[in-house]
């Protein structure tokens, strides 16, 4: 039992990181129906932004808190650029969007490989992430607590934004009924762009968190994209609570599988678990009941 509690925390931290990566997707995929395979590369852009911020602000204690909003804006702007130039032509062709963004992802990866050293760049961890916090007799690594806290803040901010602000109301209106929303004077084009900006920006925040845990290199986005999509699908499309629960479950499953077997086998098992789960509940954990076909 004593060995399992740290695994639970470890898994929750992995789940929190997955949740951060999936949060933006659940917005762009769930609310807008855009399948953005370059989302992982936006995460990478966020991580590299953290590195660039550290080049300006040397003290890592300060630079990481600064890097979080910077990464959000930088990744968001990349997302906005993608939406304005390419995705807006493809709203009626979801499957083709997937392939186009695969191409965008390839280009961004290669660009990062050429701009930055190919073996990746070091992102300095702030000193306040080194320690451990003892709660209830267990030592909890600060780094894991930070990831969980960051994910919680992002989820709270996103759901509050969707629920209480006028932008959020307009987004929900556009999702529910695009034509009716437009008739009431909502500029659905602006809403689309804003949603995409925020969704991509969240990937940037996830990138900062990822840079503190793993390496920062051009390939880092590719390893998050498929698990993140599986989490969104398993949680139920457009269901924030589903995404949260699914991310946590996958993270904990990954940690325990890795504890019992090996890291790579754990990944395979977690994938299979999600696929089997989608067999049982093809619409994910939480579903909106509709009478529509298809």
């Amino acid at each position, binding site marked *: 039992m004593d060995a399992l509690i740290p695994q639970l925390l470890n898994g929750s931290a992995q789940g929190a990181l997955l949740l951060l990566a999936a949060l933006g997707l659940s917005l762009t995929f769930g609310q807008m129906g855009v399948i953005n395979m370059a989302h992982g590369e936006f995460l990478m852009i966020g991580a590299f932004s953290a590195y660039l911020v550290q080049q300006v602000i040397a003290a890592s204690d300060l630079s990481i808190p600064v890097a979080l909003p910077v990464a959000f804006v930088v990744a968001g702007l990349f997302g906005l650029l993608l939406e304005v130039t390419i995705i807006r032509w493809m709203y009626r062709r979801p499957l083709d969007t997937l392939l186009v963004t695969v191409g965008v992802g390839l280009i961004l990866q290669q660009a990062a490989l050429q701009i930055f050293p190919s073996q990746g760049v070091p992102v300095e961890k702030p000193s306040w992430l080194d320690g451990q916090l003892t709660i209830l007799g267990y030592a909890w690594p600060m780094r894991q607590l930070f990831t969980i806290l960051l994910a919680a803040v992002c989820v709270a901010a996103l759901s509050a934004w969707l629920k209480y602000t006028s932008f959020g109301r307009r987004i929900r209106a556009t999702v529910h009924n695009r034509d009716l929303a437009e008739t009431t004077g909502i500029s659905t084009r602006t809403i689309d762009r804003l949603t995409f900006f925020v969704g991509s920006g969240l990937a940037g925040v996830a990138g900062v968190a990822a840079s503190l845990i793993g390496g920062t290199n051009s390939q880092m986005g590719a390893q998050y994209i498929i698990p993140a999509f599986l989490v969104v*699908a398993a949680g139920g*499309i457009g269901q924030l609570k589903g995404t949260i629960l699914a991310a946590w479950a996958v993270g904990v499953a990954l940690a325990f599988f890795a504890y019992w077997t090996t890291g790579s086998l754990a990944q395979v098992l977690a994938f299979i678990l999600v696929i089997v789960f989608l067999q049982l509940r093809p619409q994910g954990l939480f579903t909106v009941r509709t009478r529509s076909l*298809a």
Partner: protein
Amino acid sequence: MTKKPWISLGGIGVFAVLLLAVAPLVLTDHWLNNLGKYCCWAIAAVGIGLAWGRGGMLVMGQGVFFALGAYSMAMHLTLETAGDRIPAFMVLYDPLAPLPAFWEPFRGAGFTLAAIVLLPVVVAGALGYALFKRRVKGAYFAILSQALAVALAVLISSTIRETGGDTGLSDFKYFFGFVLNDPANRQMVYLIAAGLLIVCLLAVWQFYRSRFGELLIATRDAEERVRFLGYDPANVKLVAFVVSALMASIGGALFVPIVGIITPAEIGAAASILMIAGVALGGRASLFGPALGAIAVGWGQSSLGSTWPDGWTYVLGLLFIVVILFLPNGLSSLPARFTGRARRTPVEQPTPAIAAAELEGVRS
């Protein structure tokens, strides 16, 4: 294409003459071998064209089936090379352990050939049955299939002793009794690959002009209507998916003796996407487009990809963006554009502007 089947058949004939008679005379051994490699990708691409172009299933994980064929063949060739002993790479990691149990049957040539055909049929059949009956489609299907390819590549990478891990399986000396170093035998392997590509094209040609082909297109364009007409779209899709998996497996099996090595990198997410690239470039719904596109992408990979690898990635990325954005039906739709003939395409049909959750969602 469905209107004039005999012209297409003539096209396949010309293609066959070019591949089987002209190419061996004109090309050097090196380039003939390369062409053989492209033919393997083309065989997989023909299957993708069937499943994606005609069936609307974006199969992003064909690497899985490519791997089933490739690793079946590679295990047989490794055992043939090793003779009675344990394969050299296994001895390296653990000299005393016996041959893994699942390797043993691959000693037999008959079993290997049967496995290359039956494994993808069984796996794709089970997977397709489960997914299509549950009406998993669209992006979900694409992501799940790619997840499988990633999972399999990770699994193979991590089982070094059983499958060779990241270094893969290589150093094959014999191919069903033939010495692989002999140029004449290499030419024979090429001819088998090219011949099977022609066979796959003929099979797909027959599919497209049959009632099944019509039903497949109908399922792609209006699945619900097909269901209301009394057909089960799941069965239609299942057949197309299984056939495409079989083709990928055959391509993979021939890839091994031609290239001489199989690694997880050849079957993972990136490799699976590369297979899609050729199909998109050539024209997903056309007969020749996937094969020609795959050969073109393969050629680009080995010429530009080796002299200017950085540039090749940009070209590949741009290819996806430009082709999908402006030429959804690939290069094969260009002639029709210029002559002004309107063709039914998967993307130009009107789609109701409903929320994407409903459009792409899965229903039980």
